[in-house]
């Protein structure tokens, strides 16, 4: 593989998330912080699964074991992140209640799905990076996968036969790209479930089940890569991506009518017409006159 291919693979995997970041996140400092925090939470989950793997010596070679707990920890930390944010929101609520306006709080309070998108992208990006960095680094030399696996010579033990195909890097790339985008949907759906539990909605658990289940399926299906069934793996992962995004769209209040409206095919009437686009939440909506600005130079005590 060449440098161009390494660059291309990186762009394929991280291109879509990059644009999500640029369009939806980059302009708001708070969102950037939350994005990084999402990445951090994912890293901590990785650390814990590593420690567990390291501690349980007999199961080190059992891949399923590591896989199971890795995903469990990821989902646990998705929940923890939600929990932490909720706590922060409550504190901020008190601040706003006492009449202070803090830049960014608005988005924390009033756009929970956007928050989920930001945090999910953070987690997904970190997951994608860990998935891909070594692959890209190893592939940036001149060779492509397959030679060691094809060696059948006496006295030579080839450590692992599989992936004997120069599409290997591209497949990893696509897989990672899909994973990042799926993480966004997972976070939206997962947090919606958590939120609904707090609001005592009886069907709150549906979203959680979908996320956890599809996360396991998406990882487990990659075992078929060993049989070079890249099409199957990628197909299933793509379907999971679509299902999760459909569900996310649904929980965000999406419907066929809205879809039609969005593309100018139907009336927008009857829908709760938003005042501003989703990304502009940081802009102040007309502030009540009694609201004081939180400004270092003009703090009134």
């Amino acid at each position: 593989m060449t440098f161009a291919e390494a660059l291309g693979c990186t762009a394929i995997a991280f291109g879509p998330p990059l644009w999500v970041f640029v369009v939806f996140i980059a302009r708001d400092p708070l969102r950037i912080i939350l994005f990084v925090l999402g990445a951090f939470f994912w890293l901590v989950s990785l650390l814990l699964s590593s420690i567990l793997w390291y501690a349980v010596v007999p199961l080190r070679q059992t891949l399923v074991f590591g896989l199971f707990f890795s995903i469990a920890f990821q989902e646990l930390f998705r929940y923890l992140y939600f929990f932490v944010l909720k706590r922060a929101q409550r504190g901020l609520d008190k601040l706003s209640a006492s009449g202070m306006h803090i830049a960014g709080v608005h988005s924390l309070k009033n756009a929970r799905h956007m928050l989920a998108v930001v945090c999910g992208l953070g987690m997904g990006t970190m997951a994608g990076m860990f998935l891909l960095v070594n692959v890209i680094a190893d592939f940036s030399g001149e060779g492509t996968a397959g030679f060691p696996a094809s060696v059948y010579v006496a006295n030579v033990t080839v450590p692992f036969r599989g992936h004997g195909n120069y599409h290997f890097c591209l497949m990893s790339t696509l897989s990672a790209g899909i994973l990042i985008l799926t993480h966004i949907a997972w976070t939206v759906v997962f947090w919606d479930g958590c939120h609904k539990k707090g609001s005592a909605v009886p069907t709150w658990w549906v979203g959680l089940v979908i996320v956890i289940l599809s996360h396991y399926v998406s990882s487990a299906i990659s075992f078929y890569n060993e049989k070079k069934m890249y099409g199957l793996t990628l197909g299933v992962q793509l379907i999971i991506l679509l299902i999760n995004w459909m569900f996310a769209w649904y929980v965000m209040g999406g419907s066929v009518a809205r879809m039609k409206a969005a593309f100018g095919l139907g009336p927008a009437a009857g829908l709760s017409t938003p005042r501003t686009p989703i990304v502009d939440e940081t802009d102040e909506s007309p502030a009540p006159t009694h609201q004081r600005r939180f400004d270092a130079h003009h703090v009134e005590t």
Partner: protein
Amino acid sequence: MTHSNFRIYLIAICVVLVPVLTNGQRVADQIYMKLDSSTSQCFRLLNGTHQVGCQSKENGNTGIIYLVESSAELDAINQDSGNYGEYIVAIDARHFDEFASALQRMPSIVGVLLMQRNSEPLGSSGISEDAACPNERTSMYSEDAAHKCDWNPTQTAAGVRFLDWTKPIFLIDNATEIDIIVKSCWETFNKPVDGMAREFPVCAATLTQFMTAAKDAPTCLRRQEMFAGLSGDTTLHLCDPLIDENIIAFLPPTNKTAKQMFEHESVFVLTARMDSFSMFSDRTPGEESAISGVITLLAVANAIGQKREQFSSAARQRKHYLLFALLHGESLDYIGSSRMLYDMNQTKFPVEASSSVKDQVDQLTIDHIGFVLELNQIGSSGGEHFAHVDGTVYSGIKREKIDTVLKDTGFSLADDSNTSRLPPASYQQFLKHSHSIPGFVIGDYKTKFNNKYYNSFADSDNLDAAKAIDAITKVAESSLKAVTNWVANESTGYTIDRDYIKDLYDCFITKKFWDECEILKRATTYLENKAIVRQKTTYIGTQGSMEARSSPIKRIANVLMVGSLGEKLPNVDTKEQCGHLSGLKKNNMYSYFWQLDLLQSDNASYCYQSTVMQTPAQSPAFLIEDYDMTSGKYSTWVESVWAPSVSLKLFLRPPPRYSLWIFLTAMVVLLVSMAICLLLHRISPLLIDAHPGADIGDPSL
């Protein structure tokens, strides 16, 4: 990276890469296969005017593997180079000499894998790495334009070792690795089917072996000296002069205090060279080129050592002396002999006179030398041996002296005319200093070497043991007779021990490693760095002044000489006491070595007092201030420093368009995802309920 960090890193790969990598391997393990069990690499040497040998680019040379068995395939590469671009040619070692110049010349060949299966003899084709006229520049005939010198039958007149390859060559002798290259790589992916080149992916190799010195010896020496002058703690290490030691022994010893001194033409020099070379590191067995002569000389030393007292007293009466000289670096422009003669001219041979030593040896100078007998390639199966003389010397006043010795040995002259020329031999260096020293060179050849592997990695397993032992015994007996007659005026009472020759032959030549036989196992008992000493290498090398790193052949020859010529000191019981004796400096006539009795089988060690000494084998070129390195008077060889990363890896190369295709796809993905994101941003207020926060302030949360 600490161990624990590495573990976490490992697990990160192991657990997180699960979706793509199902077995916790580094992806690189699936791309590259390193072959490193048995490769020797061609390396760079430089002399006063040239660089020779091989090197890769700093990051290695990469090309498509192509197995070449005939010149037709070489032509195919030449015409076909547009197909894959650059090639690494895999070639059977038997064809090396035949194709060497083509391989070196063709720019589309960026590296060579030389395959030598241990089980297969190299056949009759022959591979000499030396030139048709070895050591031509420093030869005594170098200015003789009429001299046609082609002693060495080789297809590459300049010698493959002395070509400037500018590409790496790896020698592979591990059967498994050869199978991987030939079967898994070449036949599976690259071998044309029905004359058609194969589709990508094809099998490629990267050969990495970077050498730091370039151009010529003066340049690299000057640069590292200048750089070191700039700052104390950083140095630039580019090349090192070749250096080791000669092994010499006088019998009887001289003693200036006792007025036992050399006289005019009183010394008989019996000499053989102990070095050979190859372009490949550590592949210098030199069996016929050097070892056959060494064994012969050792056998003579052993025979005389058995009767040392008798020989010495007889010699003393006649005031004659015998000098054994095993010379080092002779194959690379006579390093050892030129230094020996240089030291003689400076009256520093074997050591400088010193006022602090009581009993000290006399300094040998060139006019003390009465005769030179050189043993050069003895073992080849022809069975016939010839004496080679220089026509001018032989037709001069010394003819009679030569004839006398010749009669003792029973050898006939290869050429008795006055145009007779010596083969490449240390004796030439004597004649360069004084053109009246009688002597001759004994070899198993008449006009051309019988040895088809003269100075080459392949100078191994080519001799017929029984015939070679016969030949060595015969030459040893003749030489012994000549020596004892000349020095001690005795022709009887000395016998060559055929079993000793057999043992040495078995050790040095038949066995795969030098310490696999009893006598050399005992000989190496007290040597440092045993893992290296056992390797069959005779190359002079660069660090010879450090005992542990000097060449194995020299260290072993030293032990054997001491064993033959030494005298066990009865009252010295420990190694420390023995070492103490050499430190006393009461005399410099003797050296003291603590070693096993090589001919016994017990573990008793003794302190041997002998006249065996080491004298420097470093070219005078590096001693003389402002020496003109381009003059060709002395050897100027230096070895380039190796860059540490030496590797050979095989991998598959994807179609060249594939990466372009990926890159273009990536650009499309970038554009499309940008469009989708911007679109979503625009329509998202309509698409979803952007403000679901109605219930967020719910205190129940």
